[in-house]
């Protein structure tokens, strides 16, 4: 397929792509460790997925099949926009089906359909530093990572328990990668954290504005921080998806009127559709 005239395949020039790929290789070699890279200005704003876009642009090939999701959905405007960008500058095939994609760029979710070996998932990351809220200085957090000095994070979780009775982090819940580096999973709900552990797919993380790349290679241990007496848990809903009846997927609350009427539906639009096509569903037309 043809690309947008005047631009290189994947928008970035080959030299830039090579430099980003070097950072990615280094990131894969040191799971969970943040690698600085010389992030470029992209034709979309910093903070709108430019890190993920640069990672995707650097690894994508002619034969890739790309899926882009935001909030789990293929049809949110940001996902649509990033997908049409890659269609324009790469001309690659795109899909909404998780199982058919070779490359998945995501913001805020991991698909419900388990990823397979050979697939790559690229996360858009706003703040790559898990210690940032405890220590805003990069100079200091670099030292903390080098010394594996993560006590401050455990103190923060402990303070949550004393204050609220729970660890009060609901998304971007810190994880320990390969028993060594504390890592931000990006702002996915903690519901998705367990999916990162021993995942057969390659997981790449790009933070454009903060100029960092990190990675979790396939089949790598990823543990959410917790305490023996306060183990990590994920949320459950006492509802099923209104469309497909799923009780296991991440549900998204939709406000229906101003009298407080709500319904819950799958946030993963592909999973929900497949589930409906498979004959599940309790949805009644009203």
């Amino acid at each position, binding site marked *: 397929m043809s690309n947008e005239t005047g631009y290189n395949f994947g928008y970035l020039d080959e030299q830039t792509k090579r430099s980003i790929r070097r950072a990615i290789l280094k990131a894969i070699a040191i799971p969970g460790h943040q690698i600085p890279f010389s992030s470029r200005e992209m034709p979309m*704003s910093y903070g*709108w997925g430019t890190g993920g876009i640069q990672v995707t642009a650097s690894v994508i090939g002619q034969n890739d099949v790309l899926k882009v999701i935001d909030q789990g959905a293929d*049809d*949110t405007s*940001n996902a649509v926009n990033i997908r049409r960008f890659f269609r324009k500058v790469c001309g690659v095939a795109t899909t909404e089906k998780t199982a058919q994609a070779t490359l998945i760029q995501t913001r805020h979710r991991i698909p419900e359909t388990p990823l397979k070996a050979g697939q790559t998932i690229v996360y858009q990351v706003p703040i790559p530093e898990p210690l940032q809220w405890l220590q805003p200085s990069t*100079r200091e957090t670099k030292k903390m990572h080098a010394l594996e000095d993560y006590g401050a994070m455990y103190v923060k979780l402990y303070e949550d328990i004393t204050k609220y009775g729970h660890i009060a982090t*609901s998304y971007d819940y810190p994880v320990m990668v390969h028993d060594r580096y504390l890592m931000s999973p990006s702002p996915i*709900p903690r519901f998705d954290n367990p999916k990162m552990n021993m995942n057969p797919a390659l997981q790449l993380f790009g933070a454009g504005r903060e100029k960092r790349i990190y990675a979790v290679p396939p089949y790598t241990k990823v543990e959410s921080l917790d305490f023996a007496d306060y183990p990590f848990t994920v949320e459950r809903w006492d509802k099923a998806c209104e469309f497909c009846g799923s009780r296991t997927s991440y*549900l998204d*609350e939709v406000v229906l009127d101003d009298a407080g009427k709500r319904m819950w539906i799958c946030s993963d639009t592909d999973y929900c559709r497949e589930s409906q096509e498979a004959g599940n569903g309790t949805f009644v037309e009203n």
Partner: protein
Amino acid sequence: MPYVAVKGGEKAIENAEALLKSQRRGDDNIAELSLEQIEQQLALSVDRVMAEGSLYDRKLAALAIKQSWGDLVEAIFLLRAYRTTLPRLYYSNPIDTNQMQIRRRISAIFKDIPGGQYLGPTYDYIHRLLDFKLIAESETPIPSTAPANHESIPRIVDTLDKEGLIQTEISATPEQTPFDLTRQPRKFPASRDARLQNLARADEGFLLSLAYSTQRGYGKNHPFAGEIRMGEVEVVIFPEELGFEVAIADITITEVQMVNQFQGNQDQPAQFTRGYGLTFGYNERKAMSMALVDRAMRAEELTETVTSPAQNIEFVMSHSDNVEAQGFVQHLKLPHYIDFQAELNMIRQIRQPKNHV
């Protein structure tokens, strides 16, 4: 189906773009702005966009201003996104501001300076009265000019240097490649060349306020405007394959040298310290702010206690870039309903009555 949510399709995005383009053009009974008009009559906007877009091209800056509906931060972003696709062919030789074709030059530290002071085209002593005559087409104003000075005029601060009264600036050796902020990852602690590049691209408003904060005591360093000069300098490259220098452009720049609070100790006699500002175009407010913040950011190297935002290198460099800042502030417009749902679940869980106390 009752479900209506913020799901926007490709069509919606295309329609939004078409609407924006039409509103940007405005009433088509009004003549369209030409790039020449913007370049000529909104020249200071062009200068700001070139400086913060860090690309010296008046025509492209004018195009960016036109395309961005006059939103200069958006125009800067457009220029940067274009700039990043350009190859690096050569590094120029360092420009020599002593050789500047001066249009404006002032010093606040001596009454009279060799080479003289030139007010040049400045708003400084203009009474800021709305000129209602400009509502109608104005006459072509005729400047009363003195002949332009084509001699080289040495920078006045260098005379303090000769006496050893001000800290020496250490030049890079020809072997040292300058740090390139646009090609190398930002790292902390950051060297001064990286810092000055960051400041030269930094948002004018952000630098202005930070500079102001140092004057009000948040990292005070007693500045004097040693010299401010604006004019044209030649940019020269030295292609090794040719073996001789080639002048590629004359560019307008503003240079500010601040003379700051002196320092000394048992080993070193007291010396004034420096802050430096340089921008593309005529950007005096920005260049002055840059010089104040540059000086503040040297606190650590001058063994001052770092107490204020302007002295904190990481704070300044991480937040000064308006292309980065505008993106992240505005990304809050993107859907966040998954994280919000997670927060809702969390807050509902926390509010549940405890089973056992």
